[in-house]
């Protein structure tokens, strides 16, 4: 068992609070991705778990044992750094075996464990090379190998793919997913890339300003974001947001009038909203339907500014009459061009309604 539990964990530097009363439970063998914008405290949170930073308040428990004051090496964790942090003067084998050497393991045992990890990561032909003689992807694998040889209970990854180019990042992402199945260990992974979060995670933690905004499965966060921040952060391209006002409420139904005059109805939590309240309607680019859509919804007119053809799909960046920007997903072979006027349908079933504080009110 390798559960990790954070209870009201905070980190302060003087008056500045970078991690604020975070509660989080990572179950045994779970792959949890902590995601958020730059400076949201996600790397600090990982460093608190690793023991590289002291926890100001709260408790960190791994495997039932409180770890706040336990030195990093005794926590049963291994960390893969963003910059790989390979020792440049040591060979791949020495890099991977460094921790075992410190732990006083025999040369033969170190060699055996390094070879085992190297085989898993296909590094067995590169063991005598120095880090500077390796490609970015190989260095990343060595960094992971250094973590594997210690046979930790928990793996921590701090933006491990952010130094790689797009193609290599995709390849390494697939390798990480494979490795994760092979190692069957608890993993906590920090990234600012929501694609990595969506593809790798069992559970995503969205962090903003040191606070947890939402914890949930990738699709749960995608389809039912708890607030406007999560809605805007998860999904690429970002969700569209249209301002409006509640014109009427009846039981669980709310009538919304958008700033361009369009009206539509949403099912909301009873009592969550009143007539006259300012609201924001969120809708993802793929849920704005062009052409003669037959789903229930409201139709709005937009002027196309730019069209990006990606082959399998296209994205039109448009502007509503009141200047609100709008991104629409179109088929790859769409003939729409910049300057065209188009009418899109807001599919009511896929709309998200947020109150003036950004909290979700639609059910």
């Amino acid at each position, binding site marked *: 068992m390798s559960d990790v539990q954070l209870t009201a964990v905070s980190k302060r530097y003087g008056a500045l609070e970078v991690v604020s009363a975070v509660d989080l439970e990572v179950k045994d063998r779970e792959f949890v991705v902590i995601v958020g914008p730059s400076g949201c405290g996600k790397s600090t949170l990982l460093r608190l778990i690793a023991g590289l930073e002291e926890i100001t308040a709260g408790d960190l428990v791994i495997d039932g044992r409180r770890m706040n004051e336990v030195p990093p*090496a005794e926590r049963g964790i291994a*960390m893969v750094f963003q*910059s790989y942090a390979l020792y440049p003067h040591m060979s791949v084998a020495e890099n991977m075996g*460094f*921790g075992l050497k*410190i732990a006083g393991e025999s040369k033969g045992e170190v060699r055996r464990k390094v070879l085992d990890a190297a085989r898993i990561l296909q590094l067995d032909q590169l063991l005598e090379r120095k880090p500077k003689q390796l490609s970015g992807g190989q260095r990343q694998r060595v960094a992971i190998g*250094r973590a594997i040889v*210690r046979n930790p209970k928990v793996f921590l990854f701090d933006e491990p793919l952010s130094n790689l180019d797009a193609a290599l990042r995709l390849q390494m992402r697939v390798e990480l997913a494979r490795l994760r199945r092979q190692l069957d260990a608890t993993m906590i992974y920090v990234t600012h890339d929501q694609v990595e979060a969506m593809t790798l995670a069992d559970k995503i933690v969205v962090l903003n300003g040191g606070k947890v905004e939402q914890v949930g499965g990738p699709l749960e966060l995608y389809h039912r974001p708890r607030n406007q921040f999560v809605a805007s952060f998860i999904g690429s391209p970002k969700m569209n947001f249209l301002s409006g006002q509640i014109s009427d409420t009846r039981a669980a139904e709310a009538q919304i009038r958008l700033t361009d005059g369009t009206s539509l109805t949403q099912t909301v939590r009873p009592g969550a909203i009143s007539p006259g309240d300012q609201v924001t309607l969120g809708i993802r680019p793929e849920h704005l339907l062009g052409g003669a859509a037959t789903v229930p919804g409201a139709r709005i007119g937009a002027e196309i500014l730019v069209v990006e053809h990606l082959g399998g799909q296209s994205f039109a960046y448009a502007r509503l009459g009141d200047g609100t920007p709008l991104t629409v997903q179109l088929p790859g072979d769409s003939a729409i061009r910049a300057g065209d006027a188009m009418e899109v349908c807001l599919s009511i079933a896929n709309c998200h309604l947020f109150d003036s504080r950004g909290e979700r009110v639609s059910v």
Partner: protein
Amino acid sequence: MPAVATRTRLLPTSPAHLALLGLFWLMTGASVYPLLWMGLNSVKSSYEIFGNAWGLPEHWNWGNFATAWNFGISQYLISSIIVTVVSVTLVVFLSALSAYALVALKFRGKAVLYMAILGGSILPPEVSLFPLFKTLNTLGIYNTYWALILPYIAFGLPFTTFLIRAYMVKIPHELSEAAVMDGANAFWIFWHIYLPLSRPILASAALIEGMRVWNEFIFALTFVESESVKTITIGVMGFANALRADWAVLMAGLVISVLPVLVAFLILQRQFIGGLTQGAVK
């Protein structure tokens, strides 16, 4: 990290280029000429030095070196080597330790401590001559190798610490964090990571410190008096008095005295220049 160097080249015929070239040759001549003159005259006879100071020797009189060696310069050389090797080794090791502490460890008053260490380099050695003389006497180490080694270490530490710290500060902090995760303690990280990665600057520091100690005069003149402990700078001075008119043997003695530093510099010059310019450009 790949370094991208761009170099502005002056046209070979431009006045600025010619002026720089002229200045370069002038300075090279000023540096090399005394060495050449000393080398040439060390294999002449004294008579020839006065008669033909600028020309090549008629007979290459290598025996001058044997005479100088047997006259006692061997003992001075041994003393200088002992004092230099021990001082330089300890200065570089202790400076590397303090530089590492200043870079990698978290503790209160680090900035003040660093300023205090740097402040040590402002103090000219001459002002401490008398207090040091008394201290060494009190400690009972006057007229021993330690009477030179300890002050050399004290006066060498500030600049060497500054030099090594400037290099170590560029070693990515993640390396020590990775080592902490691997279970390494502070000294292990110093010994296995910071020290090996700082090799170029350690070589530079050793060379600078070696030259300073080898050529030091005031302390060597004041803190030791026995022939068996005197270093080569003082030895050669006494040599001049003893030999009186035998300038050729004196020149041979001088050649012997500068030879170790010259050889060390030639061997380490690539590291030395590399170390001094580290971080000057990205």
